[in-house]
Each structure stands twice: as C-alpha cells, then as structure tokens.
C-alpha cells in the first residue's frame, strides 16, 4: 500500500508539474527539499507529527520555501504534507524524479560526494555511466560529508562505490 501511495502521489506531482510547464525547476526544488528532510530529523518529525495541526505544518512549509522555491513546488509540498504523507515525501520525490526522467527516456543516477561536482565532471560522469551501464541518466548530486572523498553512484538497485569511506571500511574489515 505504501508503494502504491508513493507511486500515486508521484504521478500526481508529475501531472501537476507537467501542466504547470516548469518540470525541471520543480524537480530540482523538490529534490533539494527531500534531501533537507532526510538530513533533518527534527523537521521530518514535525511535518509528520499528526498531533501538530495541519495549518501549523503548512505554515512551516511556507516559511521554508517562501522565496526559495516556485509556487508550484510550494503547492505540491503543501499538498503532500497536508495529506499527512510528510514521512513519505522523500520517497515520493524520488519516484517523481524517476517518473520525470522516464518521460524523457532516461534513468536517475543519485551521486553522493563530499563536494559538489562541476558541470564538466557531471557531463563526464554522465557519459561514463552511459558507457558503463548503457543507460542514459540524469545526475542528481547529493553532498554528503560522510563520503569523505570520491563518489558513490546509485542507479536503481545498482551502486558504484568509489568513496574514501568505502576504502576505510575495507581497511576496517581487514583488521578483523
């Protein structure tokens, strides 16, 4: 049921964003909001708390996105939070981005790195993934300090881990 709800909300977001005609910007803004929600436990618990009145939760959303996101993004986030699906919002956003990329015959590659990638690095990584997997992908970069250095790429269930963290973990395993 959860997967069906996630897919259903993702389809709704995709439909609205497509109609509004600003799909790429909405994708970026929703992706950034979902990452903020993943990394901030207090924000996630507040928006997902059923005991907090809906008006209060929607006010929090407005305060966060006011001036930082388009009206379409604010409406879509408010719709999900108002429906009491805030805890599932990151998954809904992931499904929405995959749905948008699929509409362009592409897959989504989530790239985790300690620092942001340059445009050149993004283009080269896209080409390299195309060469490696045969898939046309759109890169979503997540800055994650725990990676330490290097990159971790996730394409669906496939993971290409070239991070310093992985090498340290391998070193830790070798001590055991």
């Amino acid at each position, binding site marked *: 049921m959860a997967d069906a709800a996630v897919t259903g909300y993702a389809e709704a977001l995709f439909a609205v964003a497509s109609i509004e005609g600003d799909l790429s910007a909405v994708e970026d803004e929703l992706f950034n909001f979902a990452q903020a929600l993943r990394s901030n436990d207090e924000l996630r618990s507040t928006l997902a708390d059923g005991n907090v009145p809906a008006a209060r939760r929607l006010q929090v959303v407005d305060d966060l996105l006011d001036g930082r996101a388009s009206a379409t993004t604010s409406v879509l986030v408010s719709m999900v939070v108002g429906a009491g699906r805030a805890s599932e919002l990151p998954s809904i956003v992931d499904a929405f981005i995959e749905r948008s990329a699929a509409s362009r015959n592409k897959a989504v590659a989530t790239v985790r*790195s*300690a*620092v942001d*990638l*340059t445009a050149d*690095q993004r283009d*080269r*990584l896209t*080409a*390299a*993934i195309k*060469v*490696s997997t045969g898939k046309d992908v759109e890169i979503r970069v997540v800055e994650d300090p725990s990676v*330490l*250095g*290097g*990159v971790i*790429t996730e394409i669906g269930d496939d993971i*290409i881990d*070239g991070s*310093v963290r992985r090498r*340290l973990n391998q*070193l*830790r395993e070798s*001590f*055991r």
Partner: protein
Amino acid sequence: MRNQWNRLLAAPLLALVVLVALAGPASASGESVGACMAEHLEAHGELDSHLLHDEAVQDQLEKCFEAPSPILPELNEIIWGGGAFLILFVLMVKKGFPAVQGAMDARADRIRADLDEADQAKLDAQSVKAGYEARLADAKSEASRLIDEARADAERVRADLVARAEADAAGIRERAAVESDAAKAQAIADLRAEVASIALGAAERVVQSSLDAEVQGNLIDAYIDEVAGTDG
C-alpha cells in the same frame, strides 16, 4: 478264658471243702468258759461238792478251759460264711466283674482314644509346625529377596548418580573450556577492534585533513575514469 473262669471258681470251692473237713466241734469253739462249765455241770444233775471231785467231770471242765482254734472257725460259721461267699462270689461274677471289666474296657478305650487323640494332636502340631517352618522359610526367602532387590536398587541409583555427576562435571568442564575460549576470542576480537578503531580514527583524521579541494577533484576525476573504464 474258660480255663481262667474254671480256675477262678475252683479255688473258693477247694478252700470251702478244706475248711469243712478241718472244722472242730461247735462246743470247742465259739462258747464262753462259764457257759461251757455250766453246760457240763447241768448235764450231771444237781450241783454238789462231790461232783467237782469227780475226775471225769474235771476232765470235761478242763476241756472248757481249752482255747478255741485260732485258724478254723466253727462249722456253722463256715457254712454261712461259705454260702454268703458263694452268693457274693456269684453276684460278683455275674454283676460286679462285668461292670468292672466294662469300666476297665471303657477306661482302656478312653485311654486308647486319648492316646490316639494325643497322637493326632501331635501329628497336627507337627503339621502346624511344618507349616510355620515353611512360612518362616518363605518369609526368610522373601526378606532375603527384598534385601537383594533393595541392595540392587541402591547400587543402580548410586551408579546413576555417579554417572550423572560425572556427566555434569564433564559438561561443566566442557562449557568452562568453551566459555574460556569464547572469552579469549572475544577479548582478542575486542582488542583488535579497538586497535583498528584507533588506527582508522587516526587514518580518517589524516585523510580528512589532506582532502582539500584539489584532492577531492582528483578523486572525482579518478572515479569518473574508473567508471568509464569498467566497460572494459
């Protein structure tokens, strides 16, 4: 039996005949001296002093002083005594002796019955004694069997307890050895993990301090090249 009866009857008859044959005159015995003298004097008529000097009278009077026979009774006594004896003897033979014989037979029978009863009682007592002895032997045998069984049970229980105790002790020793090995292995693993944690913490700090923007860019470039090269 008949001869015994004949001899028994002949003995008193013979004694009676002997007594009658030897019996003296009735005057010689059984009368007083005074009566004898008075009888002789009256036979000579009137009493006077001349009569007492007559030798024939004196002889007769002297005979009155002769003592009667101490053994032989007077004839009439013998006849009456013999008759009474015969009557009494016949009564005894006809009535008394059978009664005495019957009493004796009855007594003999009673004694015989008593003896038989005593023998039977003895046999019964012996039988009872044999029964008691058999039961006593059975009781002794049963007691011996029970003692043997109790002894065997005790031995079995003791063996079980010993075996269980030995098994428990072996289990305890084995568990102690396993726990000791596990504790030892855990201590080594903990120590190794601690050393690794310390070393990795130091390595991480060194890596972080050395990961400047240039190094990060180089790592990303190297990663891109690696991904591009994985296709072969």
